[in-house]
């Protein structure tokens, strides 16, 4: 039995990568910096950010759709990635500015004085003047890049080890993950935590060393970076879930106890996937916040992680492209409806203002998708392919009325 190469066994991967490439080229050709200018720079940034959210959704799908852990704390990792890269962005940029203003002093500043000046510039807003210990590596891009992956990874590892080891499952685990992100947000909100409290980190759109590059150009560069990283991580995720490893994690999702009796260390598998997903999410966050320009602890609010779960559910969990589609479609729609640009709906006697009503629509569609289309938007592809779901009504698969058709088994 000859084996087909990975790409041929997973044609959807090729389609996703091709669509992503075409999308990037089109946006580039319509951008202000490299093309006709039909897409304003702000829109390019929105699209770039959306790709980062899609990446976070892919990671969420690994954890939820494949491993079966409904993590409601993924955005904690996303924001941590953003904070880590933000430290360097803010420090290095402030340093350039401060150095320029101190250059005219009769006596050139010592490195110590320079650092002191940078610290009071950054932390004056929270009434501190010293550089916190947590900013020890902020001057080094390399160090912050390492921390960007290492800190969320370590947090996920420790949290996961504690939670999985005591066999916390299901809704209790979801609540724990939510508590984790809330605790982290509350800590970051404090002025003395060292991350400027509720001011957060700002000015992140200015990349040190690239001051001469216009934002129009930078935004396209970030779009390219986001698309590339999304493509690479998508490939990684698709490879992860394709082989025996994917088989085992889906088995853990469906019947954890049975997998234990097969001899697999279930906790180990959960830890690997959870930690890897946290790292991918952190990278997504590190690419997102320079495009957003600002990060503050509100980004870690539990509601943000719940949105992520809603996107994945609407897009179709248990399928990587479903998560991507869900994140892209729903987050773009969300920003359109809540941005005040959607025209109000005039009903007799009442005017529906989408800014207020969008949440209701989103909530309602989440409920409807969960009840009537558990496969989400990605289910459309099954439907087009002719695979029909049996009406199982909660009964298990098997002979009888609810059995699957042969065609569906191939899907």
């Amino acid at each position, binding site marked *: *039995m000859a*084996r087909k190469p990975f790409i041929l066994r997973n044609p959807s991967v090729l389609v996703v990568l091709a669509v992503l490439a075409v999308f990037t080229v089109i946006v580039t050709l319509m951008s202000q910096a490299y093309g006709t200018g039909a897409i304003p720079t702000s829109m390019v940034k929105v699209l770039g950010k959306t790709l980062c959210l899609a990446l976070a959704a892919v990671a969420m799908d690994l954890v939820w759709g494949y491993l079966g852990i409904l993590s409601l704390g993924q955005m904690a990792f996303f924001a941590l990635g953003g904070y880590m890269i933000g430290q360097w962005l803010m420090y290095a940029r402030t340093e350039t500015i401060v150095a320029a203003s101190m250059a005219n002093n009769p006596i050139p500043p010592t490195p110590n004085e320079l650092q002191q000046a940078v610290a009071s510039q950054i932390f004056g807003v929270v009434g501190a003047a010293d550089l916190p210990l947590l900013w020890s590596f902020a001057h080094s891009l390399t160090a912050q890049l390492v921390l960007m992956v290492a800190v969320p990874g370590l947090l996920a590892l420790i949290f996961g080890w504690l939670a999985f080891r005591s066999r916390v499952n299901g809704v209790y685990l979801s609540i724990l993950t939510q508590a984790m992100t809330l605790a982290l947000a509350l800590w970051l909100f404090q002025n003395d935590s060292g991350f400027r409290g509720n001011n957060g980190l700002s000015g992140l759109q200015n990349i040190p060393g690239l001051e001469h590059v216009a934002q129009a150009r930078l935004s396209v560069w970030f779009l390219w970076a986001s698309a590339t990283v999304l493509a690479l991580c998508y490939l990684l995720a698709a490879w*992860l879930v394709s*082989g*025996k*490893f994917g*088989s*085992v994690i*889906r*088995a853990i999702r*469906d*019947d954890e*106890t*049975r997998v*234990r*009796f*097969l*001899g*697999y*260390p*279930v906790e*180990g*598998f959960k*830890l*690997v996937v959870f930690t890897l997903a946290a790292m991918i999410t952190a990278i997504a966050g590190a690419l997102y916040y320079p495009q957003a320009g600002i990060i503050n602890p509100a980004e870690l609010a539990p509601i943000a992680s719940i949105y992520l779960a809603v996107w994945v559910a609407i897009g179709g969990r248990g399928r990587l492209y479903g998560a991507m589609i869900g994140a892209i479609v729903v987050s773009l729609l969300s920003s359109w409806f809540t941005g005040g640009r959607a025209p109000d709906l005039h009903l007799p006697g009442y005017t529906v203002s989408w800014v207020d009503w969008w949440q209701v629509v989103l909530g309602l569609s989440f409920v409807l998708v969960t009840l009537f289309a558990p496969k989400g938007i990605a289910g459309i592809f099954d439907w087009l392919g002719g695979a029909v779901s049996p009406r199982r009504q909660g009964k*298990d*698969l*098997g*002979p009888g009325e609810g*059995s*699957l058709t*042969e065609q569906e*088994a191939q899907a």
Partner: protein
Amino acid sequence: MDIVTGKTRPDEGEVKFGDHSRSLLKMNEAQIARAGVGRKFQRPTVFEDQSVADNLTMALKANRSPFPVLTWRPSPASDRRVAELAAEVGLADQIDRKAGELGHGQKQWLEIGMLLAQEPRLLLVDEPAAGMTLAEREQTTTLLCRLAETRAVVVVEHDMDFVRRLDCKVTVLHQGSVLAEGSLDHVTRNREVIEVYLGR
């Protein structure tokens, strides 16, 4: 069975297994399974969303740690072994079907096939014939007898016809202690057994 496979902790007593008589009480379920104790549940527990081949591949004896599993790739040898196992439990034609599509009896056989793939040294089987048709029972008996040729098999069953067909040593337990032991005819004639189970 729950105690031996690590699902429940006993209040007292010990469980020793293997050449070095290692205590199983300090090990978790996965470690016990890796040490060579396989377990067949009463209800068929196969992974319904995955194909028969995937189910068997997962059970194949191999390193169970996450990273070796990640880099594990199917080889001609492993494909052959999966096909062999499927044929052995009578599922050669169903190998690409999802396990969820199989009939109840077929699922039981698939689970036995998965246990075979695990190559356990001790196999614990909990009421294997529950819910099976007569023809399915016969095939199950044959399978179990063949299994017992190369390893220790313990079957829990209260269906006397099925036990008779297995033709093996029978141990009668009552509230956790041994009541009688021997051939089926011997234990069914035992006075205490009759008293406890027929309630005279």
